């Protein structure tokens, strides 16, 4: 569904992503894991054209390397940015409406709003509250819900577990699974490698801008290098 070839991202003199290739097949959960500064976020931001890049990105057979972010969203790729980035001065309802900004089918938007509220009942209760008043976990739920409002075919998640208590991390991952079961393809970036590998069909390990390991989630969970570097085994 998503094919990335020879992706490069440079910030001034820094070569953050160095010619990586990866694929996200339709219906799968694919994860990119790696430490801070490995180039994970840059890769996602480059796919959405939020940062300048070189290389090829194809979505459902169509080249999207040069397409502006807003049109990429219209084609069905939605990204939940790192740190949630909910619009804190807007209400929860308004945040969700903006999630559906590209859609014209008002009736279905209403239905999807109910669908999102059924996944996150908490948001319904607080509909008219400013998003900034939510806790970190609730903001992550809102960011996920807001992304779902665009009815994405491919959902890209940038560190959804960042800064959350372990119990909330589990909640977030079970929601990701639920979203996946509803037919959304998922590209997940995580530092929490164990959780990510557990739910991933396929995984790539990113180190200083290059892919150093690939395999199914299960394979990498057992891989010695991964165990040492990311899962804290000695």
């Amino acid at each position, binding site marked *: 569904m998503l094919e990335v070839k020879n992706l490069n991202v440079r910030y001034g003199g820094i070569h953050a992503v160095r010619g990586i290739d990866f694929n996200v097949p339709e219906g799968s959960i694919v994860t990119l894991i790696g430490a801070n500064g490995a180039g994970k976020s840059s890769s996602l931001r480059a796919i*959405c054209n*939020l940062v300048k890049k070189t290389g090829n990105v194809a979505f459902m057979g169509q080249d999207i390397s040069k397409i502006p*972010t*807003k049109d990429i*969203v*219209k084609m069905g790729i*939605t*990204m939940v*940015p790192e*740190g949630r*980035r909910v*619009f*804190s*001065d*807007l209400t929860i309802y*308004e945040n969700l*409406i*903006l*999630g559906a*900004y*590209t859609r014209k089918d008002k009736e279905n938007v209403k239905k999807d709003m109910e669908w999102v509220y059924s996944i996150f009942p908490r948001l319904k209760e607080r509909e008219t509250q400013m998003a*900034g008043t939510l806790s970190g976990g609730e903001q992550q739920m809102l960011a996920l819900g*807001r992304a779902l409002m*665009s009815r994405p075919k491919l959902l890209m998640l940038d560190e959804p577990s960042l800064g959350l208590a372990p119990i909330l991390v589990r909640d977030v991952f079970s929601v990701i699974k639920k979203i996946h079961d509803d037919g959304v393809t998922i590209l997940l970036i995580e530092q929490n490698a164990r959780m990510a590998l557990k739910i991933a069909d396929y995984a790539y390990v990113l180190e200083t801008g290059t892919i150093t390991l690939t395999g199914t989630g299960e394979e990498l969970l057992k891989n010695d290098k991964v165990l040492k570097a990311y899962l804290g085994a000695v």
Partner: protein
Amino acid sequence: MTVGLFFQHLVNGISLGSLYALIAIGYTMVYGIVRLINFAHGDIIMLAAYFVFFGVGMFSLPWWLAAVVSIALTVLVGIVIEKAAYKPLREAPRISVLISAIGVSFFLENMGLVVFGGRAKAFYVPPIFKGVINISGVSITSLGIIIPIISAILLIGMVYIVNHTVTGMAMRACSKDMDTAKLMGIDVDGIISFTFGIGSALAAVGGIMWALKYPQIHPLIGIMPGLKCFIAAVVGGIGNIPGAMLGGFLLGLGEILLVAFLPGLSGYRDAFAFIILIVILLFKPTGILGEKVAEKV
């Protein structure tokens, strides 16, 4: 001072204040979204007045049609200024854009001097705005009543757009976080154009009413109202729309009442706004309704 006279000054103050409010909103909206003080905003006022002047004088349009055409042209100019002078600098340091804004302002003023000529011209005031209404000893020009009414309608419309439409939500989203707004599929450039358009439209209406109130126009008439409305926006809290309205009314009322109560100081009329600016910057630099600078992340 009699009660009647006081009310007369009050009405004048509200009338001037609503003009300031109308123009100040343009500053504050643009700042809210692109973090830029659009110094060309004052000169937009001047252009709007000249567009009407030429519409009536050269093309013999009825005054109301000239006003509509003028507003449309002013909106266009506002959008073109953004595309030509600010958009190419979107990624540049903020000071570059600010300098570009000052450049546009000088350009418009001097272009005005060359094209329109430096001599003041008499602005046509339709009879309907000239009438004087007497209410138990208080005499008010009809313009003094029409200005606040038109302003109020536009201000309410503006607040409605920003708070209750999807476009308004998108504007608020862009003002807080442009990248995330893009991820919602929002056409950020479109929203910015829209913002400049709306701001220019309000400034055009303000400029035309300004010219009706002081019917002598020349290419530099935009400078003083431009500066004062910028101050109004800062006093209210730049980036905050209700703040800009409040600042506008405060400035307008303050200016008129100062002269009314202390006629000896009438020469300092224009200084009043700047004194207020200094006081605000000393004691509440974020403005009356301004947000705290530190934001929760």
